């Protein structure tokens, strides 16, 4: 576009200069945006890698935890009753009975009557908005009713769309009540005119998981034909031990928390697996695999499925043999991924090998001793699990189901084929060819799933045949992502509504919100570097035979990846994590995350495993008092360390236990113990921000 009629040369010159100036500013703005974008992507990858690596870690011990859960029964009288109960539904009902629980006059929260009414659910929503807590009696009542309802629902719900109303589909909520309230505010409450599908992962991480469940169950009881819940991978009592839901319930309900959790365990196992709209749109939490068969899934006894995560995956079709680096979208061309391995858990430098028999012996013995103390004389091999999730007239034996695990844990990948999902440790990665095949076989046109956080709340892939919907905004950090939900009418075309809870982040400029999230991601990453310090230093040393303390950036990148295995773009991140020498080399001993702290090996191992430790503590703390004795602490540590094939001497443990006993009363408060790890994070000298 010109500047109008040319009156004179001066004018012409001015015009040219104006255009040149505009071009300059525009070029430079676009560079600014591109640089922010790459920082944002790196940050995203960091969060995702760490999240999935954490899940993978947990999965490795999943069976171990499950075993502990089933066999670590205490000597209290209440649980003796539980274990003596035969598989009788009536007796379970008695156990979960709320009738004996009185609601005191001092209770100011909502009172509920049953059957559930619209008034009741609204009261519940209002109460939670105002941060009130529902009395345990009503909690158990709602849960009991929900359990009864879920038992008669099929594995796969079938819905029909309708010209007069749209179906709303929501993804992961993860305990973020603000997001659910925002959805209701924008979209309206569930009703026969406004059916909803909630696609799993209602709990864990956020702090209002229970409130979300109670609201969803309330609506489910009220409108069972118009509210549909699909199970997510976090609707699982063992995952909950680690990711915060168990802690939330026990913290909010000190007296009845355990019962509530037990009832929830049953409810989770009874949640339906999938929803299909008009026989055309499949909605499931994780995804599919090349073996997915909805007819098989419709027939499975979903409440009896035992989720075992074996590392001997079924051989799948496609490019299973190719060592493809399938970590998310971070496909660094320079780092060479090792072939997918089923290696042992990470070891610290100071581990000694315990033979397999020895390990089994020590775990076995501990458990046998415990059981004797608890008063059981049968050996656990013969005994059927008393508190199984099974039904009155069943054998109590749980069945493995790879198909079900696939539905809840799988992720899509861009390449064709179907390979084990090693990042998560369960389910698979499936490609566009599998999508076409499975959808085709079932005569479906679209797969809607959740399970993965997306920047904009939703994302298509596989030629728009797969749609990911994620409803927890600011999932990783304030400003990290928007949440979204889908509205779908009779034409089965998805329409999206996006949002972001929290006023503060909307006011941040793009640059500020990238900066904030980035700072948080880098801190998490530096924590990982700190925690693996010993392994990292020994990996660096392999490239530095003369012990100069200096290695090349390439070597630094590949050594770091070999230890952390996060699949991150280390070269791009390097300036934020380590200091460089003048000629671009890396001084690996001088960087701020590599402080020389003496005798950190135990602390390091502990820190690496603190989530697992917490999980085990909570299993052992069977009366949910939050306290464990020295002896229990010692046994916990020994159990875990033998499972991880590390060895720690008794003296060291005793010293550590004494130092952790903050109030010196002979017992360790679990919360204080976990708090100590938070203190490690915050203490100066360990994590310093490298100035930009």
């Amino acid at each position: 576009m010109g500047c109008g009629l040319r009156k004179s040369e001066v004018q012409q010159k001015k015009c040219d200069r104006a255009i040149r100036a505009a071009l300059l500013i525009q070029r430079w703005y676009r560079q600014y945006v591109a640089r922010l974008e790459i920082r944002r992507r790196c940050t995203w990858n960091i969060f995702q890698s760490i999240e999935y690596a954490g899940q993978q870690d947990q999965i490795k011990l999943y069976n171990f935890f499950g075993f502990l859960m089933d066999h670590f029964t205490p000597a209290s009288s209440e649980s003796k009753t539980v274990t003596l109960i035969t598989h009788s539904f009536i007796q379970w009902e008695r156990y979960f009975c709320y009738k004996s629980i009185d609601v005191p006059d001092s209770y100011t929260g909502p009172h509920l009557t049953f059957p559930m009414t619209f008034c009741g659910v609204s009261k519940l929503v209002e109460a939670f908005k105002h941060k009130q807590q529902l009395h345990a009696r009503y909690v158990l009542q709602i849960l009991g009713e929900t359990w009864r309802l879920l038992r008669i629902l099929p594995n796969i719900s079938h819905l029909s769309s309708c010209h007069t109303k749209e179906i709303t589909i929501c993804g992961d909520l993860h305990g973020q009540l603000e997001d659910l309230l925002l959805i209701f505010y924008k979209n309206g409450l569930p009703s026969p005119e406004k059916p909803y599908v909630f696609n799993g992962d209602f709990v864990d991480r956020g702090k209002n998981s229970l409130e979300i469940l109670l609201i969803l169950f309330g609506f489910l009881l009220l409108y069972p034909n118009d509210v549909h819940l699909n199970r997510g991978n976090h609707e699982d009592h063992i995952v909950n031990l680690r990711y915060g839901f168990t802690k939330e319930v026990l913290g909010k309900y000190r007296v009845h928390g355990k019962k509530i959790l037990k009832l929830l365990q049953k409810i989770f196992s009874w949640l339906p697996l999938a929803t299909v709209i008009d026989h055309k749109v499949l909605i499931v939490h994780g995804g599919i695999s090349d073996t997915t068969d909805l007819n098989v899934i419709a027939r499975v006894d979903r409440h009896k499925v035992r989720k075992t995560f074996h590392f001997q995956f079924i051989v799948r079709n496609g490019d299973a043999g190719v060592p493809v680096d399938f970590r998310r979208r971070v496909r660094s061309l320079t780092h060479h991924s090792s072939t997918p391995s089923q290696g042992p858990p990470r070891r610290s430098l100071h581990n000694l090998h315990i033979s397999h028999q020895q390990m089994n012996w020590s775990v076995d013995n501990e458990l046998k001793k415990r059981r004797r103390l608890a008063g059981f004389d049968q050996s656990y091999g013969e005994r059927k699990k008393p508190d199984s999730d099974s039904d009155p007239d069943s054998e109590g034996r749980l069945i493995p189901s790879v198909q079900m695990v696939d539905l809840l844990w799988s992720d899509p990948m861009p390449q064709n084929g179907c390979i084990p999902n090693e990042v998560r440790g369960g389910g698979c990665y499936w490609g566009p060819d599998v999508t076409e095949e499975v959808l085709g076989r079932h005569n479906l046109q679209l797969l809607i799933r959740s399970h993965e956080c997306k920047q904009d709340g939703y994302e298509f892939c596989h030629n728009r045949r797969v749609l990911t919907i994620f409803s927890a905004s600011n999932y990783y950090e304030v400003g990290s992502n928007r949440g979204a939900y889908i509205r779908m009418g009779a034409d089965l075309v998805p329409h999206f509504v996006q949002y972001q809870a929290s006023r503060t982040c909307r006011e941040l400029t793009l640059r500020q919100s990238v900066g904030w999230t980035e700072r948080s991601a880098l801190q998490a990453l530096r924590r990982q570097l700190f925690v693996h310090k010993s392994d990292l230093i020994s990996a660096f040393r392999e490239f530095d035979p003369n012990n100069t303390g200096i290695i090349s950036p390439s070597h630094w990148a590949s050594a770091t990846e070999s230890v952390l295995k996060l699949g991150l773009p280390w070269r791009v991140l390097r300036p934020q994590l380590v200091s460089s020498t003048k000629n671009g080399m890396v001084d690996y001993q001088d960087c701020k995350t590599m402080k020389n702290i003496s005798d950190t090996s135990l602390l390091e191992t502990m820190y690496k495993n603190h989530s697992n430790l917490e999980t085990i503590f909570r299993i052992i703390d069977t009366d949910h008092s939050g306290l464990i004795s020295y002896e229990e602490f010692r046994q916990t540590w020994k159990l875990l360390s033998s499972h991880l094939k590390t060895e720690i001497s008794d003296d060291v443990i005793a010293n550590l236990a004494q130092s952790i006993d903050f109030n010196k009363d002979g017992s360790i408060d679990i919360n204080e113990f976990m708090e100590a790890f938070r203190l490690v994070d915050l203490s100066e000298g360990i994590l310093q921000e490298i100035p930009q």
Partner: protein
Amino acid sequence: MHSHTEFTPDQIEDFKEAFGLFDRVGDSQVAYNQVADIMRALGQNPTNKSVNKILGNPSADDLANKRLNFDAFLPMLKEVDAQPKGTYDDYVEGLRVFDKEGNGTVMGAELRIVLSTLGEKMNEQEIDALMAGQEDENGSVHYEAFVKHIMSV
């Protein structure tokens, strides 16, 4: 005049990794329409026109569908790197054109009009993002501070 020095092997490895971050398909390539942004992320600031020229003036269809691997990308990056970039002073001088009163400020409103109508036009959202927090209570932008702000990313 800007003198061009060769990229070191380490720099090239860095570029390669960053390049990989833009591959959303998994074939170790990027789309033509991503090339300009990748170059910008790697420290260049070409105009879209100059990038299109280097790509051989692709059609809209080509831009969306054709893909490029790193070995083809690197010489293009070198070519762009050889072009004059613009220094702090260039930018300040560029903005001074609009400094009617010669007092170190330009009117925000005028800047918006210029950016949306001249050169490689920016849209309203882009301009809002650029100018966020830069205008004072009179609607003026102190452009030396403005330039420092943007160059600091």
